[in-house]
């Protein structure tokens, strides 16, 4: 390839030009004195957020930025963590709590036992008073982050002793503990001794922040481009430190805003950025091709990507015609050739989902694998006949498509393939789709479907755009497939208005996710609670998050209500989950496509021991709060270039 030759030539020139810096280490000059005063081999450099509110370190008041720059990942702590990639008991971590939540029989009281010997970074001991203060202060100040859920749920909270907190709830709630359970984040505990001296906790910038976890603020850029955290001297006096038998190798964590996806890829290949994500598949492939020796990723080879426990789907607005009709929804689903969608959006590196739950973490063993048989037997009535739409061979078909490019990376074992590409999807069936549309009263005029009222059936398919490029790409492919089958579809890039339009019901059809799960736990209340028809707003009003399609169904309400009154770990949880999934297949309220695969390559020049599909001990994205378990587990690469 010409370009690679070009690169090689240029690099050769560079080597001649700077023999000392480059030839010796193969590390570009910029990497060496990259961070003033901090040895590169003691620092883990993570992709940070775009600059925002640099001086703000108050996690509890609304203030952007603080949540993704390391503050909550490295300094905040709360009772429990769920590893979104984990399975079974291993996914659960007791952090500040010593054990799982203790509910009374009717779920109106929750007791939490706290760990002893935990200290804030300023030397003050952490106690149950901090927890009580956290809840009461937020109830008093309406604008604070967890104020609303506390107000709705908590009747009173008391510290019965310095290590025990009792929450008295206003009404039964078997999922109250999830407020303090971190998947991405949760209600973090406030330092009482700091905030009680503050006049208004809403406008207090908490600068410098007091840390309850192993790292503490070292320095930051007032322009917001970077924040540096350093290991606490007394790292052992934290919930995460207690679990370690030696000091973490990572002494400094640098959250650094490195610009657009291209810049991120370049910076990683220059060894200036150890942890990145949100790059296009092609960027990932480039890193794998040009820097494979120094790169680790979720899968060691194709498809590389790490699946987030979110479920990109084709969302229909049930409050707009003709999308309230399930035959129309199913018809549109059957017009999709999922292989093309997988190839176009992810270059094949997609983890397909036929069920309405992300195919990640424990959902694979709890739902996907047990339900294969049911899916294979599922029958759909098209109005003229009955078909079996499920196709379990889709992973093999995609494997065949990518094999020419990835060869030895692609195994032959169907079980292995299912791990990489998902278990199966609906077979494209244009004939069945046509029958369904006819059943719904549609007619075909030439190659254009006409709605029952005689107007052409056209669709505006909304995608967010740059922020989630793979979904925008999936959108254009689906639009093309629908258009070819007689439903003229145009893609509409909503950009920053995307979230608001989804919430406000200002769309016909969109590509986004409306389902998120714990990942590491089969309980679906994470999203399902908000699917109750009580919360569905009339058209024109803004819908609370999650049920963006405004799907209502009595059967669904029954499932939700049943789930509310059983325990988090009760065995019925999985059964109710399956009931929901079957209902969702039948109704097709939205068309699940695949897991939200994220390409999050790691640079191994300085650090090794990153999480992977083999060893999924932590999430892999830079912004997940349980990234802290990765940070303390990393080991310095003994072959790293020496510091200068």
């Amino acid at each position, binding site marked *: *390839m*010409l*370009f*690679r030759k070009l690169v090689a030539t240029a690099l050769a020139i560079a080597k001649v030009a700077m023999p000392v810096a480059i030839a010796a280490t193969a590390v570009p000059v910029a990497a060496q004195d990259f961070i003033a005063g901090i040895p590169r081999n003691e620092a883990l450099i993570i992709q940070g957020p775009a600059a925002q509110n640099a001086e703000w370190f108050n996690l509890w008041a609304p203030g952007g930025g603080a949540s993704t720059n390391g503050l909550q990942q490295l300094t905040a702590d709360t009772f429990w963590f769920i590893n979104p990639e984990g399975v079974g008991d291993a996914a659960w971590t007791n952090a500040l709590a010593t054990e799982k939540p203790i509910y009374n029989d009717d779920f109106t009281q929750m007791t939490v036992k706290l760990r002893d010997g935990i200290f804030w970074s300023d030397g003050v001991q952490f106690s149950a008073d901090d927890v009580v203060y956290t809840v009461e202060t937020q109830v008093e100040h309406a604008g604070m982050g967890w104020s609303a859920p506390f107000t709705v749920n908590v009747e009173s909270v008391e510290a019965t002793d310095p290590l025990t907190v009792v929450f008295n709830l206003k009404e039964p709630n078997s999922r109250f503990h999830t407020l303090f359970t971190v998947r991405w984040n949760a209600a973090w505990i406030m330092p009482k001794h700091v905030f009680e001296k503050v006049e208004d906790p809403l406008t207090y910038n908490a600068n410098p922040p007091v840390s309850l976890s192993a790292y503490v603020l070292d320095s930051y850029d007032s322009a917001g481009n970077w924040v540096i955290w350093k290991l606490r001297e007394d790292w052992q006096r934290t919930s995460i430190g207690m679990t370690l038998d030696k000091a973490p190798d990572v002494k400094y964590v640098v959250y650094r805003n490195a610009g*657009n*996806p*291209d810049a991120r*890829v*370049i910076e990683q290949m220059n060894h200036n950025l150890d942890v990145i994500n949100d*790059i*296009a*598949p*092609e*960027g990932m*492939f*480039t890193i794998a091709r040009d820097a494979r020796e120094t790169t680790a990723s979720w899968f060691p080879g194709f498809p590389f990507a790490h699946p987030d426990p979110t479920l990109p789907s084709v969302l229909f607005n049930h409050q707009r015609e003709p999308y309230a009709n399930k035959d129309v929804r199913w018809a549109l689903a059957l017009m999709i050739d999922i292989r*093309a969608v997988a*190839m*176009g959006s992810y*270059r094949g590196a997609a983890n397909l989902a036929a069920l309405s739950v992300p195919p990640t973490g424990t959902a694979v063993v709890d739902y996907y694998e047990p339900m294969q048989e049911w899916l294979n037997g599922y029958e759909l009535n098209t109005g003229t006949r009955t078909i079996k739409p499920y196709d379990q061979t889709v992973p093999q078909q995609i494997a065949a498509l990518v094999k020419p490019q990835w060869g030895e990376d692609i195994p032959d074992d169907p079980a292995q393939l299912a791990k990489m590409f998902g278990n199966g999807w609906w077979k494209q069936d244009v004939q069945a789709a046509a029958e369904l549309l006819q059943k719904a009263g549609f007619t075909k005029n030439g190659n254009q479907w006409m709605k029952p009222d005689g107007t052409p059936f056209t669709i*505006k398919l909304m995608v967010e*755009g*740059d922020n989630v*490029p793979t979904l*925008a*790409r999936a959108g*254009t*492919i689906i*639009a*093309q497939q629908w258009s070819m089958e007689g439903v003229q579809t*145009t*893609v*509409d*890039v*909503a*950009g*920053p*208005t995307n979230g608001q339009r989804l919430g406000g019901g200002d769309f016909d059809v969109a590509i986004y996710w409306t389902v998120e799960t714990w990942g590491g736990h089969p309980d679906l209340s994470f999203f399902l609670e908000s699917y109750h028809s009580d919360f569905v707003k009339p058209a024109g009003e803004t819908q609370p998050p999650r049920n963006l399609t405004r799907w209502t169904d009595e059967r669904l309400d029954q499932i939700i209500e049943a789930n509310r009154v059983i325990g988090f770990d009760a065995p019925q949880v999985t059964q109710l989950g399956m009931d929901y999934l079957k209902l969702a297949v039948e109704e097709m309220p939205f068309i699940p496509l695949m897991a939200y695969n994220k390409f999050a390559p790691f640079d191994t020049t300085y650090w090794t021991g990153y999480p992977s599909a083999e060893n999924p001990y932590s999430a892999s994205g830079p912004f997940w709060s349980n990234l802290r378990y990765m940070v303390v587990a990393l080991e310095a690469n003994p072959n790293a270039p020496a510091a200068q």
Partner: protein
Amino acid sequence: MFKILRDLLRYNREFAIGFVLTLGVFLFALAHFWAPMPDSAIYLLPPDMPPSAQYWFGTTSRGQDVLWQMSSAIWNTMLFGITVTILSRLLAVAVGMISGYLGGKWDEALMTLNDTMIALPNIPILLLVYFVMRDSMSWPVLAATAALLGWNYDARLIRSVTLSLRNREFTRHAVFAGMSVPQILIRQHLPYVMPVIFFTAMNNLIWAIGLEVTLSVLGFSDINRPTIGGMIYWANQHQAIIAGIWWWIVFPIIAIVLLFLGLFLLAISVNEYIDPRSRLSRMGA
């Protein structure tokens, strides 16, 4: 007309180069009407093929032929640019000539407005307008918005030309002869303003196309419609340069630079030809 063209081609090297470049790019853009596949179709061809005998400019990561994408893209981009240019010329000529001819309070008011608009940073304003319009922001609307922001420099130039014509003898004759203001402006002054219009049109076209590229690259346009900026947008979405799919970006850029160069050369040589003043100065006193 044909003879002029022939003479220009034969004797003016700049014109000849400009003409060949522009015509070449134009014909290339025109070719998209005979494209073997629709320009919005994706994944019809094997993706990421480097330039070869079969795919001259390679294929994109979306399985499109770069050659035919470019053909459509240049056409659409030119259409956008020319629309902006024509609309903004109309505004610039109207404001400039009226301001210059009427003078006094009118002149002052119009030029104050003009200078105010010049001082406004127009990229932020365009972004805002796009934001407000959202999906009703089709390309003609965008073109109209751009035209509203892109006339003021040239209005000033046209005004100064008109101002100098106002006191010329032939204007006074025309006034005495009872010609109305529009008649004087259109019949008497427009020919003198024409070269300015023509010359500024080229700069405006360059500006407008640059704007299209900028907005499209950021994704603030109709991504379904192939344009030069849109091609780069999609290439960025696929991290094409990093991935080594350089042909996806390099060829469109080369095409647009050639087009600009051609237009620019045409502008300066034609300007020389039609400008009565420069012709006069060549003839001597």
